[in-house]
């Protein structure tokens, strides 16, 4: 038996090696390479070590303040989206007729490419698009603005896109979390005369705490690393740099200004931010387990 275990162990190691090699070459090496090049001036061919200069330039530039604000805006978008999904979850969980159909309908947009979402909402929010047509027809001309002309309305459209394209997925996760709560709790609270608001705030929210944390963290990480294709098709980071986020700026610096050193410094900053977020999340969820 022992010998058998031993051969199994050797087979495990031999079989995992090709997978690790792929990860090492195409995932871990590029990360290290990025971190290394963040300390160099790099045009793609020759790199010259310049210490922290890239970081200093980045933090001193006017762009940095804008970047910080945009990151903050992204972060603030997490809570309303999570709340929206929670409300939808609560309504769906009442199991009215056809709730499964509604669940599918709400989840459908999550499958669609952000490239498509970006193009679609650019058309919908275009100056002469359907939204503005409706707004003018009900005499709300003041709101029929050039949506992509200033940062507040442009970010609003981005929020609409992201909420539309992802609230269904969070709803699904919350529903899975709720199904672990015993039905009897709801029934008895109903008999005790609890109304919807009480049930929502005193039963659903506390019992879904773990799922809510999970959804908020994954949403935040997703907003930091996953929305390049939306920005590329919707606003191109504009007007100016008003909707440029960290991950979009990596693309701009690397492939539009060929400034690979700065691009690497921004990417490294993003890695650090992500590690911090993940660490905080792990610490919180471990503390609760105890």
């Amino acid at each position, binding site marked *: 038996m022992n010998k058998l275990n031993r051969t199994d162990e050797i087979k495990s190691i031999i079989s995992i090696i090709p997978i690790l090699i792929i990860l090492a070459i195409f995932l871990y090496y590029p990360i290290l390479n990025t971190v290394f090049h963040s300390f160099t001036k790099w045009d793609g061919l020759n790199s010259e070590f310049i210490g922290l200069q890239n970081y200093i330039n980045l933090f001193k530039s006017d762009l940095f303040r804008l970047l910080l604000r945009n990151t903050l805006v992204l972060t603030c978008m997490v809570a309303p989206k999570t709340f929206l999904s929670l409300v939808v979850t609560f309504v769906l969980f009442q199991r009215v007729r056809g709730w499964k159909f509604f669940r599918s309908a709400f989840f459908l947009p999550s*499958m669609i490419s952000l490239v498509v979402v970006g193009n679609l909402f650019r058309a919908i929010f275009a100056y*002469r698009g359907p939204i503005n047509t409706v707004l003018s027809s009900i005499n709300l001309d003041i709101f029929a603005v050039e949506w992509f002309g200033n940062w507040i309305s442009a970010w609003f459209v981005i929020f609409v896109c992201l909420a*539309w394209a992802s609230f269904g997925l969070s709803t699904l*996760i919350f*529903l899975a979390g709720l199904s672990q709560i015993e039905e009897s709790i709801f029934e008895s609270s109903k008999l005790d005369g609890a109304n919807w608001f009480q049930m929502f705030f005193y039963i659903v929210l506390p019992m879904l705490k773990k799922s809510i944390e999970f959804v908020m963290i994954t949403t935040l990480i997703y907003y930091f690393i996953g929305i390049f294709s939306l920005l590329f098709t919707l606003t191109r980071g504009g007007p100016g740099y008003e909707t440029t986020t960290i991950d979009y700026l990596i693309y701009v610096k690397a492939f539009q200004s060929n400034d690979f050193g700065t691009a690497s410094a921004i990417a490294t900053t993003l890695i650090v931010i992500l590690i911090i977020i*993940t660490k905080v999340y792990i610490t919180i969820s471990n503390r609760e387990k105890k």
Partner: protein
Amino acid sequence: MRKEASNRRYLLVRKMQRISLFVTLCIMAVITLYPLFFMFVTSLKSNIGYLMNRLCLPKEIYIENYKNMLLSFNVLIYLRNSFICSGTAVLTTVFLSSLAAYIFTKKPFRGSKHIFTLVIFSMMISSQILIVPLYQIFSKMGLINNFLSLIIAYTALGLPYSIYLLSAHFRDIPDSIIEAAKIDGAGFYMTFFNIVLPIASTSIVTISILNFVWNWNELLMSMLMLSKTSVKTMSAAIATITGRFTSNIPLQMSMLIMNILPIIILYLIFQKYLVLGLSTGSNK
């Protein structure tokens, strides 16, 4: 008597509540589905038809947009390219990640826990962070404008999450089954192919669909690595070509429809698996 009356009132209130919930859901569904409806309806309008009537159904169905897309914009080539890249990457990702999940959960070796943690941590790595070095690696290998570059990149990026999700499912397979197989003389690979994979087939379908959708929807890498028309993917084509006809919204919409059609078909067929798989990963 009084009790009966209050009972009836209670039932009435319940019924009113149900109806109001149903109406709320209907309104939300209309809001959610309207953008898709708009996309579809607009794609059936001529450009002038759209300018005159932005919101409602077209007066007459205009299929020239789709004809145009198929005949003069090479859409079929882009769709084929997307299928080749996404599909092949799914096969490699799923095979490698299920093998890895099998090893991590059922056949661990000394130190495998640390490697697992390392793999899980790389879930948060995105293509933007890797793109510059990856591009250089592939151009040194001469793989730019070759499907292989994208297939390899998708596989590497898909592995961590797939390993994570499959491990969560594989853990539910009882160890006794694996032990029994071993006593019956099934070897390492035989156990994997003949026992673990069939038992876990649901989660394997789920992870295949998820990976396919992610690969199909990916933009940055496909745009940079496959830039020639003959190898361009559908996402990249949309992002780069729609700029050429910004004033012709219906034509754009027809292209978008052709991009989401395969995904929607997949979704309708495999919904059940997706719902199952996506809700599992979060509760572990």
